């Protein structure tokens, strides 16, 4: 198995290099790590994380965990946190809330108390929001749950920080871009009308709030309604037909890879691939979507998942930066399968990098002896940092605790000099190589659409 994965990755990497398919590298300096003021050699600092590793969100959390593991291995070789070794404490909740609760109570009681919790489920954050405030344990969350971060009325304790933009803000940013790009860049006529088509559940419904609908309307984008499907659905043609009947010409999805690929496939089935633009939150711009979507091709010969638009709040694998090079190197060295080459692995790697920076800065400020969750939170509340040399950009303040620098990206496939898609062979199968291209080159601040947020339309 090893040899197969390895050869696949190598072929892929070679293909990418030879093609130079990626856009021009973003100008980035080297890795900007704060200098250590204190030498912590001989000590161990643990990174605490638990989440759904074996439940319904496992497709996205297992690559994330792979990212943690590889990053910790790599950074420990490079000196850890100011010489201190990074250890990982990780547990599986299987997506069960009781298990989250019990693991949290376990973690809370660790001696020393965790400096930070790394979580990756909206539901976990929502459950623990008040408890972590009581116990003074900050959380770094790789999900975009508005309620998790800000509570029901946006006034609740601020101990949770999100590594990706809130889903509501992502949707707002998409509306803003869509209204500008609709007739120009996208060359469409009429008005954009969005229909939500997402997974059932809190995650899938997180983008459809009164605030986002009003904001989009103010941007000239109408939200015509929402339809939902279960992760086990085989067919969403009925849902698509319903939304089309309501006038939707854009579908926005909040789902993971299999859900997005299913929608793309059914759009092609219904022959609507040219009429309807498919878009979604950051998870839809993932290699896994690009790989799954290849089974169905559009009449133009490209996979159904070609030209999905979405939020790209970080630098993608195809962009040439120092950070990406580093991640790619480690990815290859650890023989990760092609299917893991997505946002989750990147996020996992970036989270460890962020953790190191966070602890380093806190140690520099208060000294190792006084290191505590409360101090880490203070560092977080004034945290300007570009993780992995710019792959993730954080600009946290006391009131803005979610990453909010976004770009719009497009999922497509690598093409050769002749303009034709390139076919590579990996693991014994022929594949097109999914790439994500930023449509807007510059990062912009996403609108603030949490209840009572700055950009909420009154």
């Amino acid at each position, binding site marked *: *198995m090893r*040899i*197969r994965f390895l050869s696949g990755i190598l072929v892929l990497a070679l293909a990418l290099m030879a093609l130079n398919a990626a856009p021009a590298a973003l100008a980035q300096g080297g890795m900007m790590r704060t200098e250590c003021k204190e030498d912590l050699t001989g000590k161990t600092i643990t990174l605490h994380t638990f989440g759904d590793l*074996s439940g*319904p969100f*496992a*497709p996205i*959390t*297992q*690559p994330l965990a792979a990212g943690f593991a590889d990053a910790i291995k790599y950074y420990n070789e490079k000196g850890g946190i100011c010489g201190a070794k990074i250890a990982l404490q990780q547990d599986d909740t299987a997506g069960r809330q009781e298990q989250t609760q019990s693991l949290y109570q376990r973690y809370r009681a660790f001696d020393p108390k965790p400096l930070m919790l790394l979580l990756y489920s909206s539901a976990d954050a929502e459950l623990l929001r008040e408890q972590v405030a009581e116990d003074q344990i900050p959380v770094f969350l790789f999900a975009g749950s508005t309620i998790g971060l800000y509570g029901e009325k946006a006034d609740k304790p601020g101990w949770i920080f999100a590594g990706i933009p809130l889903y509501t803000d992502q949707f707002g940013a998409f509306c803003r871009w869509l209204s500008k790009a609709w007739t120009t860049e996208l060359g469409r006529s009429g008005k954009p009308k969005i229909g939500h088509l997402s997974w*059932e559940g809190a995650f899938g419904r997180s983008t459809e709030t009164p605030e986002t609908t009003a904001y989009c309307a103010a941007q000239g984008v109408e939200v015509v309604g929402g*339809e*939902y*499907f*279960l*992760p*086990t*659905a*085989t*067919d969403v*043609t*009925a*849902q698509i*037909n*319903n939304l089309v*009947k309501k006038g939707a010409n854009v579908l926005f999805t909040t789902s*993971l*890879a*299999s859900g997005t*690929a*299913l929608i793309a*496939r059914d759009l092609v*089935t*219904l*022959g609507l691939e040219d009429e309807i633009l498919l878009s979604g939150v950051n998870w839809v711009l993932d290699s*896994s979507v690009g*790989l*799954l*979507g*290849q*089974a*169905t*091709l559009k009449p133009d*010969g490209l996979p159904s998942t070609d030209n999905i638009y979405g939020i790209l709040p970080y630098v993608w694998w195809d962009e040439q930066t120092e950070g990406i090079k580093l991640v790619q190197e480690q990815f290859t060295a650890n023989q990760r*399968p092609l*299917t*893991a080459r997505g946002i989750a692995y990147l996020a996992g790697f970036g989270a460890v990098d962020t953790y190191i920076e966070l602890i380093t800065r806190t140690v520099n400020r208060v000294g190792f002896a006084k290191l505590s969750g409360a101090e880490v939170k203070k560092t977080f509340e004034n945290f300007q940092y570009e993780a992995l040399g710019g792959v993730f950009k954080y600009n946290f303040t006391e009131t803005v605790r979610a990453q909010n620098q976004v770009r719009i990206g497009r999922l497509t496939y690598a093409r050769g000099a002749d303009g*034709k*898609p390139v*076919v590579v062979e990996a*693991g*014994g*199968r*022929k*594949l*097109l190589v999914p790439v994500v291209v930023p449509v807007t080159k510059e990062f912009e601040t996403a609108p603030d659409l949490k209840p009572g947020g700055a950009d909420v339309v009154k």
Partner: protein
Amino acid sequence: MEIFGQPGFAVVQGLVAGVLTGGIYALIALGIVIINKASGVFNFAHGYMMLLGALIFWTFFQNQELTPVVAFALSGALLTILSTGIRYPAAWTRSGRVAFIAAAWATVGFILLQTDNLFLRALVGTALGAALVGLLIERLTIRPLIGQPLFATVMMTLVVGEVLLGVTQLTWGSVDRSLPIFATVNALGLPQAYPPIRIRDVLGGTVVIKTELLIAFGIAVAAFVGFVLFFRYTRLGLSMRATAENADLAQAVGLRVRAVLATAWAIASVLAALAATLYSSSTALSITMPGLALRVFPAVLLGGIESISGAFVGGIVIGVAEKLGTVYFGSDVGEQLIPFVVLMIVLIVRPSGLFGEERIERV
């Protein structure tokens, strides 16, 4: 043209999609019904057996490498099945049987090791692999509970599901996979799904039939016909029916109840793999698969928990109810509420299901 206020073509589209999806539901239901028939146990592990079966198929279908160890193990499974499960014509001599087994073994080994026809290899490999899984489950977890309270056995199937989940995570991880089985190879050399069948101008619009779902439906129907014939005419099928009716009596007349039980599990496991593979080919092979089996429970009940034809009708009815419900009331009602409302209505009107047997009580 409208039907009750909805565009006619959308209704027809919903109907078609419902029937085709229902075919896969029916196949899943069939697996659950067969185990229930043989042992009276409702199998909660079926969803996990599906996941495992589809992953086995994926392994054979997508990868060219296969260690001889796996091939050997699977042909060993065949050997076991042949030498214990099936009785050969009595006229065969001992050497004839040995030759037969050896030939079967060699053929399977050859198929499993060759890589030119991945589909055939995957078919044979999955059938054997899934059967082996079923046999192992039965032997290691179900058989020790023979004679114990039924509850314990039902519980055991739940636990087996948990272990199977762990095994799939350990071996395959959790990434979503694509499994394009019903596909041609396009100009780029990529597998490509057959284009959908479009029927234009049906009640004011175009109705689309997904080819892979249609093929899956065809296979499901074929499987059903096969099983109905199997239970009606083959010796093994008849003995399974007899055992289901009254295990003690079956034992008394010389049927091998344990062998029948093992066969039921092997068959159900193969059916689970088949259903899961067909399902995956129409969407993706995802770890959410076990959830699909839960959605099929209403179909099983609707048809009657011991009825094979009931499983088929139940699957189709639930599939159609879901899709038409979505067309008329939106997906949150159609897919999440309607199947269970239908279930409640059936239970109130006809408690034993559409095809279940009503039993007369005696004192």
